[in-house]
């Protein structure tokens, strides 16, 4: 009987190991595939001409994606400016102030926010945010600002849930020590709790950035997709993801390779962001 169980255990273990490794394999395959498809163009046109080139006209032989890299970072930064304060305040409220019953409503509601498909965010952005910006701030409304607002809302769940976890994991003794010194609740929060959870909060911001920079559907719908670097918050812009999704349908030959090399740049940026987030979490423990 015992022998039988141990064999069973062994089988389960092996099967799970294979499945676990297969997800790693997928990542590896995706990376290899994009690299094989995209790298010939890097060799042909030159790394510098792609990454630092200003002109994107793939059917005429220019593959510069520098404006898109800048635009991607601009919308990501904009999303963070809007999403980070909102998300952090929400996380602080949830972990420090809210009662159990309110938490039971707020938490699932936030998970629901994470589950709304991005095309719905994009649609709402086009219908409501774009006309408001067009009427009050000028421009066409398809702009850096409207994209930042929508992305800022989209990254809220990521920021809130990870910041919340790191705030909750601050030991109770820290808080009690602070109260014992006569500090008020708010003093305790901004002098003790938030600084102790700092690395986790930072990681939540970085993961939020990763989500914002990788978002595609909503961005194509609201950003306006112009190729120039935006000089104003009401100017349209095109992100790396938007470039791929916008042109993939018609792309052939070098144009297609150009889109894959855009993918490589995007992948490298997102991997760097994830690495930074992991580094932030590790440093805490």
């Amino acid at each position, binding site marked *: 009987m015992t022998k039988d169980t141990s064999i069973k255990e062994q089988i389960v273990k092996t099967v799970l190991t294979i499945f676990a490794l297969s997800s790693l394999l997928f990542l590896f395959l995706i990376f290899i595939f994009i690299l094989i498809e995209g790298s010939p163009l890097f060799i042909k046109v030159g790394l510098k001409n792609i990454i630092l080139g200003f*002109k*994107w*006209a*793939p*059917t005429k032989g220019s593959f510069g994606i520098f*404006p898109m890299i800048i635009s991607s970072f601009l919308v990501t930064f904009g999303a963070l400016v809007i999403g980070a304060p909102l998300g952090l305040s929400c996380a602080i409220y949830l972990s420090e102030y809210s009662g159990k019953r309110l938490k039971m409503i707020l938490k699932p509601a936030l998970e629901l926010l994470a589950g709304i498909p991005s095309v719905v965010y994009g649609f709402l952005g*086009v219908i409501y945010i774009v*006309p408001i910006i*067009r009427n009050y701030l*000028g*421009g*066409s*409304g*398809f702009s850096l600002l409207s994209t930042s607002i929508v992305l800022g809302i989209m990254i809220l769940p990521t920021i809130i849930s990870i910041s919340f976890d790191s705030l909750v994991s601050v030991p109770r003794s820290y808080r009690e020590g602070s109260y014992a010194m006569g500090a008020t609740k708010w003093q305790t929060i901004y002098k003790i709790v938030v600084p102790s959870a700092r690395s986790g909060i930072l990681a939540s911001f970085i993961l939020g950035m990763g989500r914002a920079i990788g978002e595609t559907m909503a961005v*194509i719908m609201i950003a*306006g*997709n*112009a*190729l*120039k670097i935006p000089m104003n918050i009401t*100017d*349209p812009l*095109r992100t790396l993801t938007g470039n791929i999704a*916008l*042109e993939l*349908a*018609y*792309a*052939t030959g070098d*144009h297609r390779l150009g889109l894959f090399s855009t993918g490589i740049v995007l992948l490298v940026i997102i991997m760097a962001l994830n690495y930074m987030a992991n580094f932030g979490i590790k440093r805490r423990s």
Partner: protein
Amino acid sequence: MFKKIGIFFIILSIIFVCSCSSKGKKDGNKKRIITIAGSTSVMPFTEKLAEYFMIQNPKFIIDVQGGGSTAGIQACLNNTVDLGMSSRKLKPEERLNEIIICYDGISIVVHPENPIGGLTLDQVRGIFSGRIKNWKELGWIDRRIDAITREEGSGTRGSFEDLVMKGEEVDDSIMVQDSNGSVKEIVATDPYAIGYISLGLVDKRVKALIIDGVAPTISSIKTGAYKIMRPFLFLSHGDPDDYTSKFIEFVLSKQGQDLLKKEGLVGSYD
């Protein structure tokens, strides 16, 4: 617990078997499937034609897909589709059988509230090349022009560049959308926008501009007075097979051409 799962699987398999058998019956009737793919400009009209054709010939199933002119040409060269659709002329290296099904005008559209009724081709070129940036320069209010173009590789953009830009480049600060539909949507909602779409898709929500004194209408395209027009093509790799020819015959017949005319296109045999 296991019983429940067992019952569930039995029901599933019954459904599966049933659906298989009904599919088998269809195969018995020998449904003939024609796949068509390509230009998103031609697609809505092909769909309409296919709909009528399938009502008259119930044995046919016509599967119409988008993807763009270039994708349609590629698919046709690779023999993955029976017919390709293209809204641009073929390049010399793309050796395919061309069938002109009709002609389409590209109309320059603005919001209906825009008081400007007509522009010259030169002014349109100026707007899209970034030389003219403000409506004031065209005799309206002091407001930036929100011009919208199509993405690189699109058939409509290709024709627009050939017919309007004539070698000048489309400016980088101009917005880009990836379908006729989204260009029309922006122009219909933004009073300061200007874009270009298929004449067949123009309706009350947008206003088509008079270019060089000629309004984009079926008759002006027919006579050649309206210059911004292009052929809509069906493509086949070699001669089309009997079934596909039957559909092409229908498209070129009076009934098919009348359907296209009703959609605002210009028949190929007029």
